[in-house]
């Protein structure tokens, strides 16, 4: 892929500044209150779902009530699900033309530069507003190659056998309470199938927007890469400002068949009014490869743990996660690698920056059970703390049973010291330049790990985020 001006991939400013206050847009259907069986059946009815999907939702609901609140979560108490809207169908018909999208809503996407980006680089785009996909389009060249990219709901109708085989099977709802909740309430998201040997070089993007407070978004992305295929998928999320907060509990399931390669990149830039829970898991078959990149910039609270099950021998996965906790916000992240076959490889690079009272938490898991011979895993976890009010915690968890496994873990916490700042000032750089240089230095390795255009965008994002940074603590 070649992008002449990679900064065009994201037109970045803080979402509060870029999108301003939320404008009310009428809903056609809105379901709120206590999450009961009848509410679930109502969603299923609105979506005209087959009976098996309704059953899957109800089974998930049962699990949701059965499973305990995860004890590692902090901050989620403020979420009162009984008062939230769990399904909001905006009064907008799904279209493949931006002209059909009402101006108030279209403007959000235009301000972020999504239609422009689509015209320049994307080979497919799916845009979701509240609980439903409102815009969806894929380039004909991909269609000709047999690539399927459709809203998740359409896939349930059109390809029930494929959906049944993968949906909530890569990430079972029994995993934890919020995965179960997602299973019960999921709505929107994209289904992608890449046929054997087909390479989708230019990225496909899905973009999610939550337009108002006290609302939940549960989009589901399922991506299946058949043998020896390749796909580059980008996911973006944002929200305008509102009073109160909203809840995002999305899920991404990836399946890389033998020899396939999936690159999945997320830029999360929710406004500070969103509690963001992300469920991301991939399965990699023999010699397949899954690369996660997560740039988690915005939101009030974020919980995100890209995970790969290395099921086939010779499969590999890399997860590069960058989190920024700027202000009184929390980022709880961590990559998980489950090596269940021989000769599997994983690499985790996690970098976090905490500033202005921000907190970053890393929880990683490396699991290498007996029999996963010659599995190799290395983890690098670095935290940069910019002042005394900010914190970073690291909780790596390694479960290694296989004696031939090779696992390395490096965790470091750094602070910008007065010594370093003075040193750079004494060279003639001003304080902002000095901090920028040290921050860019800290992230240097991250930029090497991710695709060029992603690195470029991240740099841009950070330059803007740190433009306004005050004195160092």
């Amino acid at each position, binding site marked *: 892929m070649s992008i002449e001006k990679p900064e065009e991939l994201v037109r970045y400013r803080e979402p509060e500044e870029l999108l301003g206050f939320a404008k009310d847009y009428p809903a056609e259907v809105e379901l709120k209150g206590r999450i009961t069986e009848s509410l679930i059946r109502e969603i299923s009815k609105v979506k005209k779902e087959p009976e098996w999907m309704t059953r899957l939702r109800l089974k998930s609901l049962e699990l949701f009530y059965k499973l305990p609140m995860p004890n590692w979560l902090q901050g989620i108490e403020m979420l009162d699900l009984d008062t939230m809207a769990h399904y909001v169908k905006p009064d907008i018909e799904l279209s493949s033309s931006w002209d059909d999208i009402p101006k108030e809503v279209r403007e959000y996407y235009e301000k972020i530069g999504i239609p422009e980006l689509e015209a320049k680089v994307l080979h497919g785009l799916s845009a979701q507003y509240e609980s439903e996909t409102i815009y969806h389009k894929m380039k004909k060249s991909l269609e000709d190659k047999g690539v399927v990219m459709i809203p998740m709901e359409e896939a349930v109708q059109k390809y029930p056998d494929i959906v049944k085989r993968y949906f909530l099977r890569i990430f079972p709802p029994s995993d934890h309470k919020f995965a179960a909740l997602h299973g019960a309430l999921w709505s929107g998201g994209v289904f992608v199938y890449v046929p054997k040997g087909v390479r989708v070089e230019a990225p496909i993007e899905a973009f999610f927007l939550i337009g108002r407070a006290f609302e939940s978004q549960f989009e589901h992305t399922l991506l299946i890469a058949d043998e020896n295929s390749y796909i580059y998928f980008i996911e973006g999320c944002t929200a305008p400002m509102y009073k109160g907060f909203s809840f995002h509990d999305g899920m991404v399931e990836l399946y890389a068949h033998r020899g396939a390669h999936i690159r999945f990149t997320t830029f999360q830039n929710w406004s500070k009014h969103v509690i963001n829970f992300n469920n991301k898991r991939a399965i990699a078959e023999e010699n397949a490869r899954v690369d996660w990149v997560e740039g988690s910039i915005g939101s009030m609270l974020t919980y995100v743990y890209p995970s790969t099950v290395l099921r086939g021998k010779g499969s590999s996965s890399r997860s590069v996660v960058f989190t920024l906790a700027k202000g009184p916000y929390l980022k709880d992240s961590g990559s998980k690698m489950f090596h269940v076959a021989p000769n599997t490889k994983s690499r985790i690079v996690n970098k976090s920056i905490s500033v202005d009272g921000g907190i970053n938490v890393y929880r990683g898991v490396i699991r290498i059970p007996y029999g996963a011979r010659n599995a190799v895993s290395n983890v690098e976890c670095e935290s940069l703390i910019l002042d005394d009010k900010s914190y970073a915690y690291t909780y790596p968890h390694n479960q290694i049973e296989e004696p031939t496994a090779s696992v390395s873990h490096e965790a470091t916490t750094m602070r910008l010291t007065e010594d370093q700042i003075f040193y750079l000032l*004494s*060279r003639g750089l001003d304080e902002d*330049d000095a901090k920028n240089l*040290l921050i860019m230095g800290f992230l240097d390795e991250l930029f090497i790990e991710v695709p060029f255009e992603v690195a470029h965008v991240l740099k841009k994002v950070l330059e803007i985020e740190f433009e306004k940074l005050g004195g160092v603590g």
Partner: protein
Amino acid sequence: MLEVKDLHVTVEEKEILKGVNLKVEPGKLVVVMGPNAGGKSTLAYAIMGREGYEVTKGDILFNGESILELGPDERSRLGIFLSVQEPPPLPGVKGSLLVPAVIKKRRGIPMDDKFADIKILREVRPKLELVGLDSSYMGREVNVGFSGGEKKRFELFQALAYDPKIVILDEPDSGLDVDGVKMVARVIDDMRKNGKGVLLITHNPRLLHFITPDEVNVLIDGKIVMTGGLDVAEFVETHGYDKVVTR
């Protein structure tokens, strides 16, 4: 020209400098010698304007104007360079990132002008050779895993690359072998010939075997207690600092 007038400096409520007078003129090498904890590094930091080094009395002038109100970066851009005694490691920040950034800032070239980097790197390469480093050092993270001597060489390289008018060198020869010390002397001499004023701060007069200073001062307990030429350095070397006050 740099001029320090009756300078009193307090650090953490303790008075360290108690009335220091000093002049560094273009093309001159001025040495400040003294025992440890005599206030030498404090003098360097105070001239540079480091936070926590409070000037309670006196003045620091650059070309006749007080610089007390200026921050360290502004003083630096005026043309004062300080090579610190213990340069801190800058993890991730390679020389090839730092040096062009500093030079762009000093010349007013926008930071995002990446083409300027290439030109600047080409331009400074010969200066790296002058201090005995090869170009691979530009690809290394600044002061990370550097030996004491490598740090000193890289500091001296920056002093050359940034082209200041006044160069303050705080213990530039520590950690270097005899050949290294000779190199430092040669570089200082070149700076002097190029019209730069050099303020050399040192505990150990070893460097002065290879270069003749224009002025030597002995700083003890926050005051300059002796001023002269090379003879002062020779006296210190023979008798030690203990004898200086009583002479």
